[in-house]
């Protein structure tokens, strides 16, 4: 079905297709529309989930954990302070190997109060064992949510997946959306380690250092295995629904001399900047990084890199740039832009490329 939807409603619509048994969520701007829409679905009977209107995000994730360990499909959504408030349980969900799916609507962190887009919230949870994907269109928000269930619930993965969409910039805009009947694209969940009353066991009892270490290592092995699962899932998705996704979305990269790397909606807007630069004779390309955990193998060649970070790790640098440097050993021009929803246009992005100073960091709108 073709329609027009907001990013938030697209996520909710995908959740309805995935039909989780339990949804536990707490409202927070700019995610609220997702839980409102799910509550509507449950009330009008078009979604059979048990909807738990929890009293906090900590409890939202805790309730998903409690439900998930019984072997049923679960979903929650949050943003910003909500994500950080549930941080403890975010860790727990991954450590407990639960295929919980969560949408996080990226938003800045106070103080001062700011409800607009920034990726620092989700990136502060990047070391928790969650898979993380960043989307840039309403359609992609929908598609990534559908795929997230299949990826998380794959036996080779059994790790939670977080779909990230930019607050307001994507969550609240209306674009066309093709809703698909999911059919058997998401197979029924079989959780091997579901809690069973006929086979009593203690989950998460005291664990010795050496055993704990081995079990943690298995999270990393599964994270590595998830690379193949994501690839297979995205291929199967393309075959079933005709829409293609991969680790990165590349635009005019083949013959590029300089690459713009960004995440979310800025990564999409960068494509317009590429067209402008190309008209000026600058051989630019855009590589929008979608998955940040597991981190993609980036085919960067010997091209110059302009990395735009809508996030920051204080005392160090932009997180995407830092990751690229660490992963590839390549230097870049790191632009910090768009924090707290700062207006960044494709003209600005083209300017970043024109004025690039490889090896330096630039705070847009602040640095001269």
């Amino acid at each position, binding site marked *: 079905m073709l329609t027009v939807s907001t990013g938030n409603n697209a996520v909710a619509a995908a959740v309805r297709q995935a039909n989780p*048994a*339990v949804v*536990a969520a707490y409202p927070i701007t700019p995610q609220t529309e997702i839980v409102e829409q799910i509550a509507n679905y449950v009330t009008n009977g078009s979604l*059979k*989930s*048990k909807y*738990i*209107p*929890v*009293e*906090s995000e*900590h*409890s*939202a994730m*805790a*309730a*998903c*954990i*409690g*439900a*998930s*360990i*019984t*072997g*049923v499909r*679960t979903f929650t959504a949050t943003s910003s302070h909500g994500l950080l408030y549930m941080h*403890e*349980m975010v860790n*727990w969900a991954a450590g407990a190997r639960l295929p919980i799916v969560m949408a996080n609507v990226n938003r800045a962190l106070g103080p001062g109060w700011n409800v607009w887009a920034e990726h620092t919230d989700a990136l502060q949870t990047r070391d928790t064992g969650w898979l993380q994907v960043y989307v840039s269109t309403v359609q992609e928000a929908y598609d990534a949510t559908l795929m997230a269930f299949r990826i998380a619930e794959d036996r080779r993965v059994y790790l939670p997946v977080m779909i990230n969409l930019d607050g307001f910039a994507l969550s609240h805009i209306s674009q066309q959306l093709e809703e698909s009947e999911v059919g058997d694209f998401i197979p029924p969940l079989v959780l091997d380690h579901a*809690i*069973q*009353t006929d*086979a*009593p*066991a*203690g*989950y*998460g*009892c*005291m*664990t*010795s250092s050496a*055993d704990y270490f081995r079990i943690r290592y298995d999270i990393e092995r599964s994270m590595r295995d998830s690379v193949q699962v994501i690839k297979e899932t995205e291929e199967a998705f393309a075959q079933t629904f005709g829409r293609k996704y991969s680790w990165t979305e590349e635009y005019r990269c083949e013959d590029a001399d300089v690459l713009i790397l960004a995440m979310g909606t800025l990564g999409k807007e960068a494509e317009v900047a590429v067209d402008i630069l190309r008209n000026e004779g600058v051989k630019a390309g855009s590589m929008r990084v979608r998955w940040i955990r597991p981190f993609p193998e980036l085919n960067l060649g010997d091209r110059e890199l302009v990395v735009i970070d809508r996030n920051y790790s204080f005392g160090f640098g932009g997180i995407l740039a830092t990751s690229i440097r660490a992963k590839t050993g390549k230097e870049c021009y790191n632009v910090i832009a768009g924090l707290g929803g700062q207006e960044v246009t494709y003209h600005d992005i083209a300017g970043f490329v024109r004025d690039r100073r490889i090896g330096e960091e630039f705070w847009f709108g602040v640095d001269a």
Partner: protein
Amino acid sequence: MTLSIKLSLFIIAYKRVQIVMSGTSASEYIWKCTSACAGCSSSLILRHVLKAAGPDTVLVVPACCTSVLQGVWPNTSFNIPVYNVAFAAAAAVASGMAAAFESMGRTTNVIAYAGDGGTVDIGIQALSGALERGTNFLYICYDNEAYGNTGMQRSGSTPLGARTTTTPGGKTHVKKDLDRIIAAHHLPYMATACSAYPQDLVKKVQKALSIKGPKFMHILAPCPPGWRYDASQTIEVGKMAVKTGIWAMYEREYDSLTLSGPTKAAMIKPAPLEDYLKMQGRFSSISEDAIRVIRGEIERNLRLLKAEAEGTC
């Protein structure tokens, strides 16, 4: 009283034990042995809770003594599914589990078993939310009046004047009135109990689990190392808490309150408060003023409970 009368009373007591226990499985769900301290009343409570609940039960345990005394992976002494979770999360995890079981059409008991720190302090928000949402579960707070697992730091449940490692001069605030906070949620069932009265406790667990919706039990759990008394006195300390009235036992079904026998007796002829305090090293330096305040608290609490039981409030 002659010896023979005494004997017959004991036989009656024994038969009562048998009658109560016959309604439950004779199975032990905690296998020999946990690594709980010798004389641990929480172990005693949980032993009877699980016997009363039976095998179709999942236990949710937040950080507390119970999370460490099960044993070290890959073994556990609990022969029942146990989900160990983070400190503040028990009631919320239980919410999710209850919803999931309901979605599967299963009637498995979900019991959260948490200490006082995990209940009256860090976990109270999740607990309040779960109760307000009508979650179908039983939440049990076993109350040893401090953070026992980490070596006896004060909790909101520590009584006035008690020494803990963070109140070395004795606690300067009174015990949080958890039960009236819980009562404000107007539950289908809530009860208080004490490890010294296992039969009473078992009956209350069985009753709680026979009711759909949120149930709450608050069980006093004397702690030999924390309260500083000889391990053999665990039952006697618990009984004395009830006899002095510092711990009142009752059931509240919606808003209708029934006092339990030992508390009724304590209302008629209470044991001296000092007898309870003197049994425990944690009260060794308690001031006369603090004792006066505690006595006032007891009188107020019992007066309110009595009025509520008689329907005159």
